């Protein structure tokens, strides 16, 4: 039990921000005997230790890691939403980044002050945050007549239109979005807390925006993950899975298929909206080019790599997809076989792209059920080895 704690003592390279605290702990543990009790104990301790590490990180980790972790948390929230839609209900969406943009820009619009070039309503930031998430839900609701009727890949094609409309609006509705260079994101403030860059000393450690936002991110992610787990484990979750597995059978059993599809689409849009708000707060500026088709595909990659249909999978996938490029960019110069730019070999940037691609392919190839299956796969392999040994 002191093992994970000693890790917190020497943080920088060995403790990247891994937020899988909300991950449900894999498959069933081998039952019986003293070994089994140890396992049970460990299973109870691990989440607690993980949560502790996450809570203590801002005191040790550099801002770079915290920022990377925040990107991962925001991505995790968005990926949970997409996983509810795609993984659990079987509806493909290529328009997820549009709803992220609605959340991000919605927050700027509601909380921002008008400054001559862009409009803003100047509402209290916390209210603006809630409204931005609601706005993303409304945008999803407007699309739900389509989302309710189309299934699978057809919905994917339809949602593609959202990206193009979104990009056009983001670039050209200058008084709302600030155009090409985006608009500044108002600082989040509530109850006397201000998530700005002003240094606040907490236990001798200077807290700037990333450290403060880290805790906000943890709270939002935990709440989002718990809510999604609740949805999936209850009646609506079973209905969603029934729709995914057999639409007609689900309809025969009395599940209102179109209404469920529409509702899940709205819920998933709201998750995306929340992710957008958190991302905007980390970026401190919204940039329209970010919310394009490649971001939507990145989100799909997250849930496929992490594991379709589970909240833990979405979180793991988001962490994997977000952190790997960051880490590779930072350490690319110290990788082997890398040559200085222009000398003809593989440049650091190219190497990190290649490695990222390889990691994605490896994850999909060797863990077809997603990263979330990793503990199960390892355990099965161990059992198989033990069986061959005893026989």
């Amino acid at each position, binding site marked *: 039990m002191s093992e994970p704690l000693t890790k917190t003592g020497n943080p920088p390279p060995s403790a990247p921000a891994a937020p899988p605290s909300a991950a449900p702990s894999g498959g069933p543990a081998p039952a019986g005997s003293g070994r089994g009790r140890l396992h049970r104990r460990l299973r109870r301790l691990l989440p607690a230790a993980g949560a502790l590490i996450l809570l203590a990180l801002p005191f040790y980790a550099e801002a770079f890691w915290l920022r990377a972790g925040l990107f991962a948390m925001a991505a995790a929230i968005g990926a949970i939403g997409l996983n509810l839609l795609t993984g659990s209900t079987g509806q493909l969406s290529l328009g997820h980044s549009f709803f992220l943009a609605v959340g991000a820009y919605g927050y700027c619009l509601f909380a921002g002050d008008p400054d001559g070039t862009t409009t803003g309503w100047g509402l209290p930031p916390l209210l603006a945050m809630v409204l931005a998430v609601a706005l993303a839900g409304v945008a999803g609701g407007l699309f739900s007549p389509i989302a309710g009727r189309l299934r699978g890949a057809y919905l994917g094609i339809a949602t593609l239109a959202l990206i193009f409309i979104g990009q056009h609006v983001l670039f050209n509705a200058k008084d709302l979005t600030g155009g*090409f*260079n985006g608009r500044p994101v108002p600082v989040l403030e509530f109850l006397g807390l201000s998530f700005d860059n002003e240094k606040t000393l907490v236990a001798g450690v200077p807290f700037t925006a990333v450290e403060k936002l880290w805790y906000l991110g943890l709270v939002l992610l935990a709440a989002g993950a718990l809510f999604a787990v609740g949805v999936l484990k209850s009646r609506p979750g079973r209905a969603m899975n029934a729709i995914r597995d057999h639409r007609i059978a689900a309809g025969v059993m009395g599940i209102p298929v179109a209404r469920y599809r529409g509702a899940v689409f709205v819920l998933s849009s709201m998750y995306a909206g929340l992710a957008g708000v958190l991302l905007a707060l980390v970026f401190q500026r919204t940039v329209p080019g970010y919310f394009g088709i490649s971001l939507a595909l990145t989100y799909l990659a997250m849930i496929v790599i992490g594991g379709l249909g589970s909240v833990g999978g979405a979180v793991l996938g988001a962490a994997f997809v977000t952190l790997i490029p*960051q880490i590779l960019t930072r350490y690319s110069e110290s990788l082997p076989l890398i040559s200085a730019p222009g000398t003809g070999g593989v440049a650091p940037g190219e190497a990190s792209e290649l490695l990222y691609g390889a990691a994605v392919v490896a994850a999909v190839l060797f863990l077809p059920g997603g990263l979330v299956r990793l503990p199960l796969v390892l355990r099965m392999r161990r059992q198989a080895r033990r069986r061959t040994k005893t026989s």
Partner: protein
Amino acid sequence: MSRIRRLPASAVAAATALALALTACSSKAEDDGGDNGSGGGDGASGELETGAGVTDTTITLGALTDMTGPYATLGASITQVQQMYVEEINGAGGICERELALEVRDHGYDPEKAISAYNELQPNVLAFPQFIGSPYVTAVKDQVDSTDMVPIVAQAWTASLLGSPYIQMVGATYDVETINAIDFLVSEHGLAEGDKIGQIYFEGDYGENALEGAEYAAEQLGMSVVGQMIKPTDEDMTAQVSALAQEGVSAIVISAGPRQAASIAGVAAAAGLNVPIIGNNSAFAPQLLATEAAPALLNNFYIAASTLPIGDEAAKDIADSYLAAYPDATLDNGVLAGYNAIEIITEAARLACDNGKLTREGLTEALRTMSGFPGLGVTHDFSDPANPSTLETVILKPDADAPGGMVVHREAAVSDIAGSFPRE
């Protein structure tokens, strides 16, 4: 059951206590030094005041580049020439008795990587002689102005970046450049009052800033601008050119990329629209002269820029040593842009060193005193951050035989209209 329950509770309590105890010895805890604490070496180097990015042996500079995204060619040229420059300077004894070091991060034009990389390098560098991606420069602008105060040379020429005391652009902004381009069309191609100018421009700050300049010039000259906004992904310009032909334009201004320029020149020639075409400095790449559009480009196409072409005599030394260091590289104007940027930063560092203040603040102050800095073909004035470093523009023309594919057509000049362009 109860046994199992009790255990985590006590474990959590113990762990919390341990965590709180560990917090006390966090390496992040403040040691009164603030931002520039780590790099400071005030005692050892006598009178010289130093700050972030400067140690007793090394001056670290940061480069935020794009070598895997849409500006990969530009990023590669700038990074390579800056690496070369750093080696040259170090070979000649360094600056302020210190070696230069260049920390490069390739963000691939991705906002997550760009913002992370800036924040990662920022505490440890004296200045950034390279920062590609004007949206990301804008994104960190507030942070730079309020807390970081790190001098940055941005590889962008858009007026929206003016006004920050720390963010510097080398050359005329796109609005000024376009005004000078139109002035050139008037004086050499006989455009007159009542004429229409067609402008094909990118959505975003580059194209829109150029459009502002064109509209101002047209208003002053009694002409009108017919605008055609395109996206960077649009490459076939047939529709735009025929729209301009129908309007009966007397000239075309291109505020877009090289691919669009090639398409415009080719389509215009094929459609018999025989009017002068002039592009902003980002609208040409030497590779274009190897395409089918080459004859059209060689015939009636000009480029407005704030620097001499790389093939000019004045840039020969740079071009030669660049090719010696990187034999396979293409010579383009990114090489000069990168060279100029790092030259200005090191020059300012030299001055700051002489003033006994090799800090970010000292560097910025030194930069403000550089009012007659000789660039290639134009003179730069860095004394006023609210104005571009120069209002001069050189007119270039493609030439298949010149290295870098361009030769000077008209020496650097400022038009009267560019001088009167209002800047708030």
